[in-house]
């Protein structure tokens, strides 16, 4: 299987600060991809570069064989590459219904609006109960559901989740992890950034440790790792 996304030698940053140094990775060859590593080492920056929020200084990003560097975020969403940003900072004063309508804004997603809405409600029945409520009045877990639900409304061909369980209570986190597994079983390939390695090991087939703006280690399918090894990658040997 060809990778649906490949990042080739991307260097990117903010102003004069370079965060990503010639980073390369692939997604979709073996299934879901997990990214992990210490905070502040470029995971979120990488995702911003992929989704067009940040222009890389050099390198190529191929989505489905086409170089998307320089494409607008809108064009990238239009191609079906959907990024759920970290921290569920969505549209605080819009209702859940509004968010779902926005998710289906792109011409590619609009014909599937009703069908995707069914899917989202089936996945997160809680949202249906609060359909007309403003996002700011929801709990952290519910807001994360809205974020992911909005992304599903965009009819993703590849879904990128940036720390979906960040700051959630353990019980809600388990529910959300189960929902993400459901999405994956529904046939949407995922790239997930997560600090919870157990969850990543369960969800993904391929892992990258991102450290100092580059891939420090790649773990391919079959190369199983135990918890201790990952801890030593995090904290040095």
């Amino acid at each position, binding site marked *: 299987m060809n990778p649906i996304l490949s990042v080739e030698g991307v260097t990117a940053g903010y102003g004069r600060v370079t965060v990503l140094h010639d980073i390369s990775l692939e997604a979709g060859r073996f299934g879901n991809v997990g990214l992990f590593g210490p905070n502040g080492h470029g995971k979120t920056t990488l995702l911003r570069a992929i989704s067009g929020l940040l222009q890389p200084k050099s390198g190529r990003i191929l989505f489905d064989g086409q170089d998307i560097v320089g494409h607008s975020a809108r064009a990238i969403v239009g191609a079906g590459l959907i990024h759920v940003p970290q921290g569920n900072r969505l*549209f605080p004063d819009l209702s859940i219904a509004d968010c779902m309508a926005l998710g289906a804004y792109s011409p590619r997603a609009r014909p599937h609006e009703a069908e995707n809405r069914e899917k989202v409600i089936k996945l997160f029945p809680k949202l249906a109960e609060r359909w007309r409520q403003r996002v700011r009045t929801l709990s952290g877990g519910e807001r994360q559901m809205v974020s992911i639900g909005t992304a599903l409304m965009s009819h993703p061909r590849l879904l990128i989740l940036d720390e979906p369980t960040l700051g959630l209570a353990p019980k809600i986190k388990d529910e959300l992890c189960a929902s993400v597994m459901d999405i994956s079983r529904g046939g949407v390939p995922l790239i997930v950034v997560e600090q919870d390695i157990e969850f990543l090991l369960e969800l993904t087939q391929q892992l990258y440790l991102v450290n100092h703006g580059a891939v420090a280690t790649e773990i391919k399918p079959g190369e199983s790792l135990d918890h201790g090894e990952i801890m030593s990658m995090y904290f040095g040997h």
Partner: protein
Amino acid sequence: MSALAEILFGGLFQGSLYAMMAVGLALVWTTIGVFNFSHGVFMMLGAYIAWQLVELGLPAAVAFPIAVVVMAGVGWILQASVVRPLIGRPNIVLVVVITTLAAGSLIENGALTIWGPRSKQIPALIAGNTTIGGVGVSLHQIAIIVITPLILAALWMFLNRTRLGLALRAVAQNEDASHLVGLNVTALYGLAFAIAASLAGLAGIFMGGYRFMSPVMGSDPLLKALIVVVFGGISSISGPIFAAYLIGFFEAACSYYFGLYWTPALLFGVLILTLMVRPEGIFASRSRGLA
């Protein structure tokens, strides 16, 4: 009785004009996060374009809508030339104050060169006068009092009931997230400016129908609209609308009881008090967003 009628009528009338102006300022602020100091010039230009079209022989019913549409284009172009290139830079609020002031000054002097300093007037929406509650009023003013709420309601419906309006409200709340659902953020910025400029142009046409026009006719309404948005809070469009009418009534009452001379001082007194007590505005929550 006639005092009350006079204040009520004056308040409704001035409030209508202020509301049309203030809503545009609020729309631009909430979506783009900048303050448009050429907003008063939009008002002037709308009036002058309407005047020119009428002068060329078009009936008012054709000339006025054309002027409003032309103003939408002017707003779009201004946004594309002096606002959009600066988006993403640090201190954008301050920089855009300067660029819009400069553009406004340029347009104002351009109008002076093209149309000259002599005062002009455009036809009233409806000619004639009537008496209500012992106060003589023109039908033009009554038309404005009736039309303005309809236009503002239409704007509210557009923002709250259409997909494009939803997109505008979304951009106002979170730009990054708007990019990530595939909104054309640049076009929405242009749209916000276009709507604001059309509304200001319409306010100018309203004003040109009962007062003499001059190239600087927009500066006083801009000042009043600034007071309105500071007073009402700029985080939504309903806040400035209510505030516009309140300020209109306040102004009408002041000029009735204390005279025209004291009114600006009292208005600024209210402004300073608002800034001290409730700097986010009396109708505002502390966040940005259109509703």
